[in-house]
């Protein structure tokens, strides 16, 4: 039964998946996937006849190095990619033209786009954020603003007004996007000292989890965010700094298994994604399990049957009807080579209420 409304996408990437994103357009079924095999894939869940199933590989964009993140731009015809070649690129889907927006000084782990402020933000292991204005006009020479961070950013996520940057050493910065956009735009016009802009975060927090942050994802309602760590735990927190709101934050254990010899085997929680409609969220762990959670009622909605390998990425479509799950053998199981056919892309068609919380007990 669980297999009836879930299908695997044909011709998945040949190496581990690093990220997957659905198109921002409401009824679109397009999905981009970045992979360690140096390509970005564009799929459509619908085939020529418009029926959903199997999915279809539309395009494939080659990069010089493994691609670590991808996101859609203003519409589904442009994407931004970030990769191990230190570059942040913009790809025009129609022409296939690739433009390098900026180069970091180390691998670029993540890239996000804010449609509200027309900026692309990339986070790199060189401990900086690059902020690119996409409305800068034809002057493509304009350099991105460089925002230094205290540590390497591991995951970034944004809402319409805020940017959450989760870094090494359990640091976490929340930036006000408006201020960020403004400050970096100013720096751009002044163009002094190599566009380096010290931006004071709106809030500076310490992760409420004791171990390295793995992923951070913002709630659709601009209320707060969830973060996960390598130690099988997810924390849910609110932006509002008032003590009442802060009192609501919590964390819970998940993605653990008891082994035969009585050990509690703890898997990293690699991926988080919020459902755009119901506000519930999915977590994907190194144990190959995807679970849906109701962050408000603090309850698990459901847990899907184990996938064959570690979950690398999860994502909901814009209308909330599909859940895509990228499965890749984890480096956590110490495998060096990725054998054929273990990297898979599952898409689950969600029932009306499948991702909806049941409400507090």
């Amino acid at each position: 039964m669980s297999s009836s409304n879930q299908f695997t996408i044909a011709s998945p990437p040949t190496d581990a998946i690093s990220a997957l994103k659905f198109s921002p357009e409401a009824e679109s079924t397009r999905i981009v996937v970045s992979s360690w095999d140096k390509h970005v894939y564009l799929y459509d869940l619908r085939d020529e006849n418009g029926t959903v199933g199997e999915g279809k590989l539309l395009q494939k964009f080659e990069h010089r190095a493994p691609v670590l993140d991808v996101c859609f731009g203003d519409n589904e015809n442009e994407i931004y990619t970030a990769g191990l070649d230190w570059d942040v690129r913009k790809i025009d889907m129609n022409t296939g033209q690739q433009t390098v927006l900026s180069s970091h000084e180390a691998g670029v782990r993540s890239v996000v786009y804010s449609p509200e402020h027309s900026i692309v933000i990339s986070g790199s292991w060189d401990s900086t954020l690059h902020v690119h204005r996409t409305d800068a006009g034809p002057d493509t020479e304009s350099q991105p603003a460089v925002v230094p961070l205290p540590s390497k950013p591991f995951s970034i996520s944004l809402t319409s007004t805020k940017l959450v940057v989760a870094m090494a050493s359990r640091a976490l910065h929340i930036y006000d996007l408006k201020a960020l956009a403004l400050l970096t735009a100013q720096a751009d016009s002044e163009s002094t000292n190599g566009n380096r802009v010290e931006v004071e975060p709106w809030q500076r927090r310490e992760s409420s989890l004791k171990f390295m942050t793995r992923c951070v994802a913002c709630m659709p309602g601009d209320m707060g965010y969830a973060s996960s760590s390598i130690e099988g735990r997810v924390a849910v927190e609110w932006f509002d700094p008032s003590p009442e709101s802060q009192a609501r934050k919590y964390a819970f254990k998940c993605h653990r298994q008891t082994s035969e010899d009585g050990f509690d085997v703890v898997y990293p929680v690699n991926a988080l994604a919020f459902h755009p409609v119901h506000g519930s969220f999915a977590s994907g762990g190194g144990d190959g399990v995807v679970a849906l959670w109701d962050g408000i009622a603090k309850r698990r909605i459901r847990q899907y049957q184990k996938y064959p390998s570690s979950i690398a990425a999860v994502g909901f479509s814009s209308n909330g009807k599909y859940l895509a799950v990228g499965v890749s053998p984890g480096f956590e199981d110490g495998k060096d080579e990725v054998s054929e056919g273990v990297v898979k892309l599952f898409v689950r068609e969600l029932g009306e209420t499948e991702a909806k919380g049941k409400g507090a007990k």
Partner: protein
Amino acid sequence: MGKKRRGPSLEELLARPWCYYCERDFDDLKILTLHQKAKHFKCERCGRRLNTAGGLSVHMSQVHKEQLTEIENALPNRVGLDVEIFGMEGIPDDVLQAHHQRVATQFQQAEADRQAATGNPPAGSGASGQPAKKPRLEATSDLKKRLAEHRARRAEGTAGGSSGEATPVGAGQTPVPTPPVSTTPSAYAQSPTVPSPAPAPMSIPAPVQQYSYPQPYGGAPAVAPYQQPVNLGYPPFSPASAQPVPGASPYPPTGYSPQPFPGQPGYGASPSPYPSQQPTPTESAIPRPASLPPPPAGLSGLPQRPAFAAPPVNAQQMQQMHMGHPVPQKVAVPSYGNGNATQDTPQVPPPSDNNVSSAAPAAGTEKPADGTEKPSKKDKSKPTRMIYSDETTSPEEKMAQLPRYAFSRDRFTQETTVVSELGAPVTGTIRDQDTVVDPAH
């Protein structure tokens, strides 16, 4: 003395209804059927609960035009639709036998284990053994009681002073009596430095300048300059601040109360206000949190209270971090922040980062529960094994270092140096203050 409750007998265990699909057993049949409806016979599409697999299959095909292929949440070898199960009915004989076998073996195993552990005779032999056993039992209990009493007396006699004071601190009383403070455990070990006000204030401003960290909320009361140096200087590893020391948490509020008090402007900079500070303002102006016991009578002894022991505590904690503890277990800072947050709420709302982060533990989220001592205990009771446990390098970075992903940019050599330099600040944070500063600035 009533009959001691032993575990259920084998017959009772065998009579328990259990679920064919997942081998779970239940108290009664009704619950079993409810379980099956909820776990195995529930339609994933519409949530309707059917009574049997066949029913679900028909429902799926008629309502959703789909074919049911397997039972959800079932053991791998029981997913089939071929057996019609309702409650305990329909379970194939061989499976039933196997289940009984399993239960019996488990029971015997448990019995044997218990016997080995307690040395008690097996359940059956109780009838004959009881009369003889009873007096013996009483004797041992008496013995134990007497032993306990004796121990208590001895403990009182010998440990008298020190243990007497140490416990109250942990129990949430204010450690007013000063002299013993020095004998109390680590967190207060620095109290001897209290009398000399100089070191503390000196050490505080220093880091501030050193890091030249922007203090957006400098205008805020004294807390900011006070806390920030600590957390900012070591922003990455103040994990500290997330784990209150259970024993200490009730303590800091009183200890710290002077800071939020706005009437103490020069606190951080000059030692002079120090002595004047303790007596009255603390008690009169700052509302004590409800969790604290009423102010003890000996409050006049307040000057002696190691309110200023806080910076030294941090210093010690720094030392601990220098020793290379990735996540220091014993840290007092958080509890201080904690105390502040609960005690003086106006401190929290300004979105000063430190306040936010410190408000967190106070919020009574998972953190307090996971407090300092607990993780270690937990570890003992249920050992955990982390699949990925590198604290400084993310899995992606590790993966990127694999030769097959090596990417040679023109600046490849530079890349390697950059990477190693990046590593330094992180590890440096743990070990040595200087290495943190140098590469960063």
